[in-house]
């Protein structure tokens, strides 16, 4: 499922640009919630809410970097599940 006309600029040039996918974002949020110990049902609900908020944030942005998208998602996710938001934010900063 692709939504809007927003394009995501990946961190590395070889990965290029890809269209924003709400489904892909939701999956990554669910994974972060489960890693933080949230039950499946809660993870799904939180992911849906956060993905909608991020989609709204993207409405007037034709292009964003994958890092900006991660930060914006982590910020929204922290409102619903602080630990999951923290893990989401830390993903690229752990190693």
């Amino acid at each position, binding site marked *: 499922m692709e939504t809007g006309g927003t394009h995501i600029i990946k961190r590395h040039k070889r990965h290029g640009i890809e269209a924003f996918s709400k489904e892909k974002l939701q999956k990554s949020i*669910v*994974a*972060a919630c*489960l*890693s*933080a*110990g949230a039950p*499946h049902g809660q993870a799904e609900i939180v992911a849906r809410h956060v993905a909608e908020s991020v989609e709204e944030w993207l409405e007037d942005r034709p292009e964003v970097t994958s890092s900006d998208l991660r930060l914006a998602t982590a910020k929204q996710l922290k409102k619903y599940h602080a*630990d*999951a938001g*923290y*893990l989401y*934010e*830390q*993903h*690229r*900063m*752990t*190693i």
Partner: protein
Amino acid sequence: MDITSSLAAVALIALIHASFQLSVSVLTLLGSHTIGARMSHKKVLSLISSYVLGATTMTLLIVSFAALIFLQAFGTEVPLMAWAIACAVVLGIGVAVWLFYYRKGAGTSLWISRGFARHLTSRSQKTTHPTEAFSLGLTSVIGELVFIIPTVVLSALILIGLPGGWQMAGLGVYTLFSLLGLLVVWALIGSGYSLSKVQKWRETNKRFLQFSSGGALIVLGFFVYVAKVAAEVAGVMS
């Protein structure tokens, strides 16, 4: 040094190795991805255990390889020059750890090649089979080789001075103590402890870990220099 003192020294040196964080970071990521991918607890446990087994195997191999090289080069009597060079390496890397170990900014990013860090991150995400987890464990120890060279070199130099059977015991002591950090995180993930709490603790205490690892290497370098090099030189001169 007698056998007990040698084994105690190897254990202390291995604890410095245990304070280095690359293997722990990869284990945290592996745990996070496997739990996030809705794998069963049994599968998660199998993957993280294979990872720890891989790190154990590579640690054993690296220390025994270094000991073999030194044994071939020096026999059981290590020359003074070798101790002096080892001390210089320990002190140099101790200072480097103080200066460079963690990157600036949030998170627990280490001063390793970004390409290698991305590779480890992506491999930990794609690991679904115990064999892959095992090789990830092997690779993570190689990745932190630059930081563990001092502890490996000093332990190997001490080990070759021990009688045959005790060398194996020393190897076991080094491996066990060097993996303590990893074993603690393995037990935490296995018991269902929150990964975000583990990562928060690591991020909060990263500067302390950096200071203590670098400081311990510097103290160790001075100690070995005084106990081995300076003491022998003073003995020759008196």
